[in-house]
């Protein structure tokens, strides 16, 4: 949650404090500095949120949310440390973006509450929105300098045989059952398929993909066909886990950000692509081990919606 105080924190130190001398051939100094700056900003903001939640609540016009603000403090510090450890990693900077979204969401909620000071809350929202813009910019820049693409990788251990895992994934029409942002995948040929992705606000992206290599019970790789609206490629590997404890499934997805479609793709992915692959794999595990993804959308609650912003961040 950004405030006037943090604005100062942010303008005084971070950029100057960034260590120099780590100039890299791949990465422009400016971007790295920007990343380091965001790292220090995160830590400063986190500490303030943790230690002086009351002051932040006052500054942002949100009363009664000190515990929440403190937990945001911990989150900011974690992000700061992650970024400083790996200032060149796009993933670490992307990790700030959902956090910003969280801040915006809670300030939005605060705005709706009659207890709070609207003027101040709106000011804070503007500050956070500004920070989000910087985060996205920095993440996109980092994504670009590391070869024009973002790579997201994750793996998971599954209590099923290599054969079962491979067979399920091999039928690409199964993918939307656990990849939330996919609306459908249709098999259109021996190795071809048509993918439709969706994002909030009726936003759609479509592309055709082609299987590049397919080694039964080992590995499948695919890529979007040339000329697709969005360039991406993926691979999934299946290895027997040691001790006969099922299968380790590793997925790798590369997204390309060519100019204008960067924004489009960012909209579909919404957040840190690495988190998305990780969550997809957790859903893959639910589907293949239990037959379905466990849901809470549509359950009763003593409020209008059955789930909350926290669930949407987590899923």
């Amino acid at each position, binding site marked *: 949650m950004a405030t006037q105080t943090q604005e100062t924190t942010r303008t005084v130190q971070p950029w100057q404090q960034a260590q120099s001398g780590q100039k890299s051939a791949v990465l422009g100094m400016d971007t790295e500095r920007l990343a380091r700056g965001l790292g220090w900003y995160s830590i400063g903001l986190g500490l303030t949120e943790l230690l002086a*939640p009351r002051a932040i609540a006052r500054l942002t016009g949100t009363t009664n949310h000190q515990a929440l603000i*403190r*937990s945001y403090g911990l989150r900011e510090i974690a992000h700061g440390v992650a970024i400083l450890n790996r200032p060149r990693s796009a993933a670490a900077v992307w990790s700030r973006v959902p956090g910003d979204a969280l801040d915006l969401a809670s300030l939005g909620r605060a705005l709706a509450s009659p207890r709070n000071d609207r003027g101040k809350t709106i000011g804070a929202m503007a500050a956070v929105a500004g920070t989000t813009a910087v985060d996205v910019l920095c993440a996109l820049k980092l994504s670009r300098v590391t070869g024009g693409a973002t790579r997201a990788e994750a793996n998971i251990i599954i209590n099923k045989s290599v054969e079962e895992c491979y067979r399920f994934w091999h039928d690409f029409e199964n993918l939307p059952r656990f990849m939330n942002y996919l609306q459908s995948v249709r098999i259109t040929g021996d190795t071809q398929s048509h993918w439709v992705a969706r994002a909030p606000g009726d936003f759609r992206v479509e592309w055709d993909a082609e299987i590049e290599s397919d080694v039964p019970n080992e590995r499948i790789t695919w890529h979007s066909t040339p000329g697709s609206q969005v360039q991406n490629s993926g691979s999934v590997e299946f290895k027997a886990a040691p001790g006969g404890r099922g299968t380790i499934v590793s997925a790798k997805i590369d997204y390309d950000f060519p100019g204008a479609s960067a924004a489009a793709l960012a909209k579909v992915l919404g957040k840190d692509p690495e988190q998305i692959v990780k969550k997809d794999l957790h859903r893959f595990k639910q589907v293949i*081990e239990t037959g379905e993804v466990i849901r809470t959308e549509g359950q009763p*609650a*003593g409020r209008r919606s059955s*789930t909350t912003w*926290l669930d949407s961040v987590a*899923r």
Partner: protein
Amino acid sequence: MKANCWQGKRKMSVETVPDPKILNSQDAIVKITSSAICGSDLHLYNGFVPTMQEGDIVGHEFMGEVVETGKAVQKLKVGDRVVVPFPISCGRCFFCQQGLTSVCENSNPNAFLAEKMWGHSPAGIFGYSHLLGGFAGGQAEYARVPFADVGPLKIENGFTDDQVLFLSDIFPTGYMAAEQCDITPGDTIAVWGCGPVGLFAIKSAFLLGAERVIGIDRLPERLRKAREDCGATTINYEEEDVLDALNEMTGGRGPDHCIDAVGIEAHSPGVQYAYDRAKQALTMESDRPIALRDAIMACRNGGTVSIPGVYGGFVDKVPFGSLMNRSLRIRTGQTHVHKYLGPLLERVQKGEIDPSFVVSHHMALDDAPEGYKIFNNKEDECIKIVLKPGEKRENLQQHVTH
């Protein structure tokens, strides 16, 4: 339907909400006849559990009648009378297959949040925060129960609700706490906290062959229950120094195994309490481990410290050196209720234990907020409150006498 909802720190309200629906093909809908308030619910009530959201339906100790089943449900039938375990278990993951159902890998749809906080995620739990899945709870007229063929235990004999309801949580919890001590004949067990969990831990320690069990609390009615209904020796920690008293009783060696059935909201008459309250207020520690510190210091060399009491985050000044240098063993966990259902129902059937002894109050669902207040403040000699959805206040005899 009506449901008891968390609305913020020390604020509960009974709201009219939509009836639950089948959301997954393995779900069942249960019409609830009894739903208890747990010491764990007090941690929600007092604001110690992060990621609660206004309007969350709480409650995780419930039983009732199956009124609808999803199309993949095979064992449960409409009309079955069931007790529902509080952790949600898929029955097929690595952990569920070993009986470690409270750490199921598939039942927490918000595993990502829990991983950020704890490194890895445990199972989802009914009505217990978004960190643990954001599932609607059972202090309501109806509840949706996922993985219905895995969790619910069918009750086919003529037991009353009070006799079998606690199989959902506190009886297995007390039992697992004692079982984790690997009690051998002749053992002395000390139990911090004579709330419902502590009382079941005392009873279970005897069932598992303990020679002597020492119950520690400050509330006279609870200490009396520990002595009269469970056969324990007791220590009132406001009147005696607990460590001195335990040493006195064990010739200076300490109890063979120690059980912390208190958890994060422990209380103490000493400066320690002020210290932990202050640190909690400054968020420099999230949990107050007063009973845990005592349990470690008191335990005899090579003994077990078993912790059913709930902890959420970070604790301060835990005498780790004492653990290490004296070869102590820590055992803990949310209870793997599923694996105890069958064996403990059998003990009830054989008459080895009648779990209804802990019940002090029956209340209408409408009175749930009042129930939380009474239970939290330990007013009215309250030990365990059972809410009776579907029953009118006038028809309930609030005080239960045994």
